[in-house]
């Protein structure tokens, strides 16, 4: 008798992966919590988090939008103005330290810095540089929008049963003089870059873990019942400032995020981790869920991830290869819509800086 003799089939590579068609691999996630459709979900994070929000809405889960567009605005205009992309208009929150920064603003621990970016008579929010197409008409308008976004973010924390956060990057940019973080390097989407002021930080494991731990504690201080579902974005870095090759930089970044998510999930009762990252990235899937640029995730990949999510959630997971009842599949129309709906990702703008280079 030894500890391996009575393990579940999913514990053995040969049974769970090696002898199974990739699309039949299941049971990758055993939810910690009995999530049901009526639970209130809020979604934030990197670009990939948008897929989760859409999928929750598409399956009639109670995805909460605390900062909705004005009633009557067209879907196209809502997307243009970044409404309904996340549960409030934070834009992408790529790093755990940026999530902590937003949380401290929402808690009133820190004041929002008074920095404003200006270009051609329009005003840009350094913490959401692409939130308003063409920028704001005035500083006062930009500040008012910031206040609404922060108030809404707090409301999301207060009302959510589940805070779903997709961790995206470890590479980050800080204001060296004042210590706060930007979601994007100044001078890319908007603003001006100053090497004396703007500092690059590739966050190590300890910094990411500490930021997430503090964030969770702060949010639990606002809403003692809130639970967290973490994911790691499978989308590689558009560009790296680390000095490393972008492929190894991506591996470092995702490895740190995955390790932090795993540790938080293992050590904190109110935190769970859903392996969307593994479902897309794992070698067993042969990279088939990536678009030809080997970066973007295909609609098929997104569907596969979200189908897995809902199958696991409804308890439809059994050892391979038994067939069981499954959650409803996305309709063809939903898949088409997913294909059409490009994500709102500021980070993708960095690709423009590759233009004109070799290859």
């Amino acid at each position, binding site marked *: 008798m030894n500890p391996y003799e009575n393990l579940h089939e999913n514990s053995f590579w040969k049974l769970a992966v090696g002898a199974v068609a990739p699309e039949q691999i299941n049971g990758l996630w055993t939810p910690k919590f009995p999530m049901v459709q009526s639970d209130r979900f809020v979604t934030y994070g990197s670009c990939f988090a948008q897929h989760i929000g859409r999928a929750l809405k598409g399956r009639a889960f109670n995805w909460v939008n605390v900062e909705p*567009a004005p*009633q*009557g*605005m067209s879907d196209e*205009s809502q997307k243009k103005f970044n409404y309904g992309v996340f549960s409030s208009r934070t834009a992408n929150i790529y790093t755990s330290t940026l999530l902590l920064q937003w949380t401290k603003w929402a808690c009133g621990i820190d004041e929002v810095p008074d920095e404003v970016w200006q270009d051609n008579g329009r005003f840009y929010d350094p913490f959401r540089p692409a939130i308003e197409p063409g920028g704001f008409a005035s500083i006062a308008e930009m500040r008012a929008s910031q206040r609404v976004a922060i108030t809404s973010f707090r409301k999301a924390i207060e009302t959510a049963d589940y805070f779903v956060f997709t961790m995206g990057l470890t590479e980050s940019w800080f204001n060296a003089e004042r210590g706060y973080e930007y979601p994007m390097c100044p001078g890319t989407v908007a603003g001006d870059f100053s090497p004396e002021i703007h500092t690059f930080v590739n966050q190590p494991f300890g910094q990411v873990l500490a930021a997430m731990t503090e964030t969770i504690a702060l949010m639990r201080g606002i809403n003692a019942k809130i639970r967290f579902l973490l994911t790691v974005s499978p989308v590689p870095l558009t560009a790296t400032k680390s000095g490393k090759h972008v492929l190894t930089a991506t591996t470092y970044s995702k490895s740190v995020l995955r390790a932090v998510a795993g540790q938080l999930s293992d050590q904190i009762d109110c935190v769970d981790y859903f392996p969307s990252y593994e479902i897309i990235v794992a070698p067993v899937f042969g990279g088939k869920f990536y678009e030809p640029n080997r970066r973007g995730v295909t609609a098929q990949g997104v569907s596969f991830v979200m189908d897995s999510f809902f199958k696991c959630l409804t308890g439809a997971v059994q050892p391979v290869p038994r067939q069981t009842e499954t959650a409803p599949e996305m309709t063809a129309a939903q898949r088409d819509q997913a294909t059409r709906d490009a994500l709102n990702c500021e980070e993708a703008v960095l690709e423009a800086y590759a233009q004109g280079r070799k290859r």
Partner: protein
Amino acid sequence: MTKVLVFGASHVAQVSMAFYALRARNLLPPDLHLDFLSAPGPVIGRLKVAGPYLRLLEKLSKWPDPNFPTETFNLWYDQTQARLTAISGTDTLDLRTYDAVFYLGGQLLSQWRLIDKAHASGAYSTACLDQLCLDFISRSDFHRCLKQDDAGAESCRILSSFEPIHSELLPDYETFKPGLGRFATTHDLLRASAARMGYEILAFPMELLNEAGNAISVTYHNGKADDYGHLNPQGGSHILRTMLAAVPGLAAAGLPLLPFE
């Protein structure tokens, strides 16, 4: 002679009543000639300006309004078509034959409360509110009618008027009272957004509104118990006056309102 065309929604009828009443009192310049074309209910959605021509699109087999039987809409359509033919002699009206052309209605104000609500919340930027107005205008019969599908075509200047909002006599209407100032703000936002789309919209005659800024004053109710959408001829004369004031040469003469008797 100054030739003017007023076409659009059923509200055109009250403007025409005002015109003929003023004409009967010799209160208008004698060489002023007005043609009126009213397309009631959903028939307004069948009016289309292409280049300098106004025409009526084909009759629908199913009308997008469940409130009346198909026969009623067909009758309204036939009446509109007959009127168009009576004015032009054909099924198409050449707008270049007029000194001024006015379009009235098209649900431009139908969603004004949503715009007001968004503006009053303070949660939205000016660009966002402008986009909201653009979205509403883009979905309106007004835009469907006046949008030039062929950008290169010769066109004719058309000035537009907002349709009246409902009467304060409407039973059970809300107690929402934004005040005249907020109505005016919404009205200005819509006009500015429409201008960015290339449309010229005349200022709505604010004297038609009640003090709460949420409905047409009882003074201008048409007297029909089941009709809270249309003005009386006195109300129509206010709209007529804003139109004629925009016709070159007429404003200076001083334009009258239809008196109450």
